[in-house]
């Protein structure tokens, strides 16, 4: 807290850079640690160049983008619902995106038209968010959360149905693995496919700061301060569906990053929703990249799924958060 804002920015950049370096060096194939500095030399090992530029670099970029999307949307949704337990998964957005992606992949649409996966993922995310906001409209946070749970349930059932009807006999196994979330073996194609949507979503979400600040006084006061709540909800819906929809379409369902990142930065930047947004974005990116590095480092024969790791690490934090909330609540 005694750290000045400028130092904080420098520190955040340093941490991100260090994580990126580690991410480029860590994988199933061991590369000498000086590889990064000899990549552009003519005598560089072509295998190492290939692995770093075509496998690990896109994976790293995706981890940063997906983490940023989850962190920011988590912070925005916590601000909108004025509930510290909100996260993208809560609105059914992730499960909606998963349903869309599953349909795209297993009907073969994605083979004919590569954009089908992110676009159907986005469509699923939009559908789910719209449904949640319609069902839980106006009646406060609890109804919204319950509506989100209901929509998630419907989306999961839809996913199961899509698997039932999938022509590929391995589909059920594949998709249950995919739903655990992973960034393994992603390519620049994936980056190019989802980055435009994801970045657009981040920009839309990033503009909600002032309104969320005002909303911390409740809906009536926020309205009296000139905030248009309907357009704010729409903005959050659009941004979350774009960012989280794209993230889920490429990386599967990854829990807890959206919940954790805002909480992680609040001790440093305070509770004002606007001030939490960009730090939570950076924190989300760093956390997800660290988690992805973790999946590659942990010595299991089977690569640990990213979503599994984030939930395993996130749950104790979640519990401690609940305990703290219970203590501070009257």
């Amino acid at each position, binding site marked *: 807290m005694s750290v000045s804002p400028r130092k904080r920015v420098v520190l955040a950049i340093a941490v991100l850079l260090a994580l990126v370096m580690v991410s480029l060096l860590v994988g199933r194939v061991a590369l000498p640690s000086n590889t990064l500095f000899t990549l552009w030399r003519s005598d560089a090992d072509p295998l190492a160049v290939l692995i770093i530029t075509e496998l690990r670099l896109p994976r790293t970029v995706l981890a940063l983008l997906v983490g940023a999307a989850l962190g920011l949307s988590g912070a925005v949704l916590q601000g909108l619902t004025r509930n510290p337990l909100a996260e993208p998964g809560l609105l059914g957005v992730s499960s909606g995106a998963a349903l869309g992606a599953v349909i795209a992949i297993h009907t073969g649409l994605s083979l004919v038209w590569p954009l089908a996966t992110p676009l159907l993922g986005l469509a699923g995310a939009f559908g789910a968010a719209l449904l949640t906001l319609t069902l839980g409209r106006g009646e406060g946070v609890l109804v919204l959360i319950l509506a989100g749970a209901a929509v998630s349930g419907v989306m999961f059932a839809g996913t199961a149905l899509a698997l039932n009807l999938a022509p590929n006999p391995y589909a059920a196994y594949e998709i249950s693995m995919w739903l655990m979330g992973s960034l393994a073996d992603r390519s620049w194609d994936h980056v190019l496919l989802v980055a435009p949507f994801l970045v657009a979503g981040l920009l839309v979400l990033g503009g909600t700061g*002032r309104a969320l600040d005002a909303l911390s006084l409740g809906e009536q006061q926020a309205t009296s301060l000139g905030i248009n709540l309907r357009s704010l909800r729409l903005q959050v819906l659009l941004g979350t569906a774009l960012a989280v929809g794209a993230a889920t379409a490429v990386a599967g369902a990854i829990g807890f990053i959206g919940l954790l990142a805002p909480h992680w930065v609040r001790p440093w930047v305070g509770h004002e929703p606007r001030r939490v947004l960009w730090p939570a974005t950076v924190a989300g990116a760093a956390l997800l990249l660290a988690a992805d590095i973790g999946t590659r480092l942990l010595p299991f024969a089977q690569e640990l799924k990213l979503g599994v790791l984030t939930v395993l690490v996130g749950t104790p934090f979640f519990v401690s958060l609940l305990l703290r909330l219970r203590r501070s609540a009257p």
Partner: protein
Amino acid sequence: MSLLQAQDVCLSLSARPVLQAVSVSAQGGEFIAVIGPNGAGKSTLLTVLAGLLAPDSGTVHLDAKPLAAYAPRDLARQRAYLPQNPRCDWPLPVERVVALGLTPGLPAFGGFPPADQLRIDAALQACDLQSRRQQPATTLSGGELARTMLARALVGDPAVLIVDEPIAGLDPRHALEAMRRLARLARDEQRLVIAAVHDLTLAMRYATRLWALRDGRLLADGPPATTLTAELLRELFDVAACVSGEGGSAYVDYV
């Protein structure tokens, strides 16, 4: 000097008529206490006057311009509104809560202009909150929170201040203090203050005018000394009451 006028305002909520042909008018320098039993439509009238709720029929004008014609931010700069039991959902420092009152004048991105910091300081001082500056709003006592919210409303220097039950839940000292503060805002700073009040004694002592509502209709409109009579109280609340004294020592007692 601002002028707020409502003409034949009717409003139904869930098919139940809440306001029926209410016409009122008020201007800067007045402190109006809205009185009436629970469910009389006081809060609804305040939200309509604040422009948060559009009436089914009838019009509300601020300075001869319909409220609906104002851009939300322009309206927010001229009138402040505090709902019943306002609270802050995040543990923000008092200073930041007060700063939220400047929202309508701020750009979407970036920090506060230095001039705004001066306005925040002034609002904090006006509400005796300098010592609480950094305290999280969620840990304040009821009186302190009420003062913080009032500071939040005042920081934007509004011409019209609409407050729903500003003294609900406050102990006598804080209630007195709050009413005194609202009266000063009207008298000394020529603002228009409209507040729903249940404590009739305090309303009588500090308000310059009363609006008495029952079942969505305006039963009386006038200065407390002549308006607040035993007959009106019977009509309003179905209780027998006597009104004694006048001015700063007036009080209402029930029999």
